[in-house]
């Protein structure tokens, strides 16, 4: 295949991946919709007025789910896996078409981050089946992100500018992608935790709103644990990405740290995530406040990608946007 056909194939695969993820969203919705009709009420009555009003083990709801819901869940997972494979294909064909690592501009970077997020979600969902139920809340933002990336960040396949031709691209950008993708899932887990913990508090207070969808989510404790574990995993990777970036900057820009907007916001993100990890073990900050810090962290990451590349001018402006 010529480079042009490979590049065109890559673009086609991108659309297919978006399509598969959209179908997966539909399937996840169906899964939630067909989720136990009566189960919530029964469990809630059984739970009585005790403090943890809902079953503490995340696996519970998966065991009790009706066959129809489970079938939809499996379909959704299958579509997600397929979507991830196709999306990996987007990057692989781009890489083949250009003869370089396929993360040299914002389009490719964004696509890779989303792929990492989907893979992290899949790994979590396979290891802890109850986490599958946050699928729609992961894949929904994923589809939105993909559409945004395709519409606003698209850059046609091309060679790298001179400054990016360095082994540090593989080190710095790859780890930044991994860190970002992991934080993405972590942030969503925290958002879901915020939703779910409020629901649980209401249930415990007897104001039980009995939302079927929220009820199908993993327990607040499980969501909080997931958010924390992923952040613990992502934080050293992010730290490494920042350090690698500094080492690269020393040879590319003449100094390892110059408070360029991208550097500044990478530092801010680092501090926010450090604060999140601390907050979770600090009395008075456990639970919802620390979850908010994690959400702010994700906000900072997204801001750093979009605002700093598109609005401000800095040395990191390799976005491929004109």
């Amino acid at each position: 295949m010529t480079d042009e056909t490979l590049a065109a194939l890559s673009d086609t695969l991108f659309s297919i991946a978006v399509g598969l993820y959209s179908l997966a969203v539909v399937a996840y919705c169906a899964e939630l919709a067909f989720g136990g009709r009566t189960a919530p009420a029964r469990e809630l009555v059984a739970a009585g007025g005790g403090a943890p009003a809902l079953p503490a083990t995340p696996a519970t709801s998966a065991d009790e789910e009706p066959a129809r819901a489970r079938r939809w869940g499996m379909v959704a997972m299958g579509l997600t896996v397929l979507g991830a494979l196709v999306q990996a294909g987007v990057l692989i064909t781009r890489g083949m078409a250009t003869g370089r690592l396929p993360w040299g501009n914002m389009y490719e970077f964004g696509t890779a981050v989303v792929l990492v997020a989907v893979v992290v979600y899949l790994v979590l969902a396979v290891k802890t089946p109850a986490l599958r139920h946050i699928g729609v809340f992961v894949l929904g933002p994923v589809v939105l992100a993909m559409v945004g990336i395709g519409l606003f960040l698209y850059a046609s396949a091309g060679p790298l500018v001179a400054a990016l031709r360095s082994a540090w691209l593989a080190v710095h950008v790859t780890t930044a992608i991994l860190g970002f993708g992991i934080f993405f899932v972590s942030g969503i887990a925290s958002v879901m935790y915020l939703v779910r913990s409020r629901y649980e508090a209401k249930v415990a207070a007897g104001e039980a709103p009995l939302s079927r969808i929220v009820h199908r989510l993993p327990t607040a404790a499980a969501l909080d644990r997931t958010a924390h574990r992923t952040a613990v995993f992502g934080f050293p990777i992010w730290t490494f990405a920042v350090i690698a970036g500094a080492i690269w900057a020393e040879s590319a820009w003449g100094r390892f740290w110059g408070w360029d907007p991208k550097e500044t916001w990478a530092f801010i993100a680092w501090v926010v995530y450090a604060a999140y990890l601390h907050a979770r073990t600090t009395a008075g900050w456990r639970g919802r406040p620390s979850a908010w810090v994690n959400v702010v962290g994700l906000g900072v990451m997204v801001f750093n990608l979009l605002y700093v590349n598109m609005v401000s001018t800095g040395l990191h402006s390799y976005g491929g946007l004109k």
Partner: protein
Amino acid sequence: MRTALILLFLLAVAAIPGSLLPQRSLSQSQVTAYFSDHPDLAKVFDALYLFDVFSSPWFAAIYLLLFISLIGCVVPRAIEHGRAVFAAPPPAPRHLHRLPDNRTLPTDLDAAAALDVVEEELRVRRFRVVRRDGKHGPELSAEKGFLKETGNVVFHLALLALLLGLAGGKLWGYEGSILVTEGERFCNTFQQYDNHREGAFVDPADMTPLCVTLDDFQAQYEDNLTAASFTADIDYGLAGSATRNTTIGVNSPLRVDGDRVYVTGHGFSPVFDVTFANGDSFTDISAPFLPTETRTMSSEGAVKFPDVPGSDTQLALQGLFAPTGSVTGGLLTSIDPRPLDPQVAVFVYEGYLGLDSGLPQNVYSIDQTQLERGTLQQVGQANLKVGESTTLDDGTVITFSGIKEFAAMQLSHDPGQLWVLGAAVAVLVGLLGMLLLRRERVFARASGGTDGAGTVVGIGALTRGSADTAPRFTALTDDVAAALARRTRSEEKPSS
């Protein structure tokens, strides 16, 4: 610890205006533009150092406070940890069943033998074990995972070292930048640089007497005109000693003894010959034109002739340079960054250039105030290709005779750099230790069985770090139970 974290947070918040407002350290011209767009606001912002956030007193204050607070909490912590490494594990708590993981195991062995079994299992798992005769019976305390706390101490000490290295590098470091045309040379002194920045403790006398000559500059492009590489062939050496030849480029600076020399940009210097009416002439006069658009290398600049032979009036050319020019409707634009068809569009001015007015002048343009005052007048205008000339009314002939390439070069000196790298690696190592390792404490106590016959071993564990401790605890106690059963049986055999 909380204070340190709050200060760190404050440092992050303080950095925000530095990323949203133009900064002098990054782009003086953007700051100037901001001043002309928002004159009043800009004055207020400037008074608050918002255009120099990272060198502002308040940023330095937060930095310093963070530093002090880190020292205040990490040093005692490190000392305490140092002691703990040599201290025995703490005595078992009274109520083992209140620990997060706990289990009781019945056995026929006597208390001491039962604890022997527990100790063996723990030692196999590399716990440090202490046996005590407690108030509530013989007991055992075991501990492992000091590295987690070591990681914590390393992390925080490294953070401190990092801040020190950063500050030191700023105070004793400097950098200078200069545009060097092919064939020219510069030496590492502040007088020679176009721009320089230096820390408070830099002594110009101590600067390495390094000199660099730019022999050749080359830019290479892909078919779609993406810049593929910029390389500069240079000769370098200490002043007065032999020079060596090397090639530097993007991502590969020259590194010599703590100094680094970079190519940070490039451009073209159009070359002009001027022949005056009286026959005097200047040949090979050039000045760097600054690229205004890197994609096509369309550039702007000025060439000034303050000393025109036999005349009091001065002469200047200002205009646009296009490495590959295309003229449409009289307007010159560049369509390619490579010098395939170099062209200039210049305005010629005569009069007073204001060079000796005492005010600093932009070397890339003529002094607008002189134009406004009428002391400088436009006397000609031309689009020229290489070799073409234009003749002014007074008979002066201006020829565009060729081009030279220049490189923007930068010399940086940062003595804190390696120190910071080491500290950053230590931060990461400490972080990994702190996040991935766990500290486990296991306690056990043997007491007489309730029916007066057997012994009961209570075991409890306390883990700091990763979440899922239950499976590990179950595995440990299962092994202990199995060992207890084995021991009982093997002891019974001979007696029966």
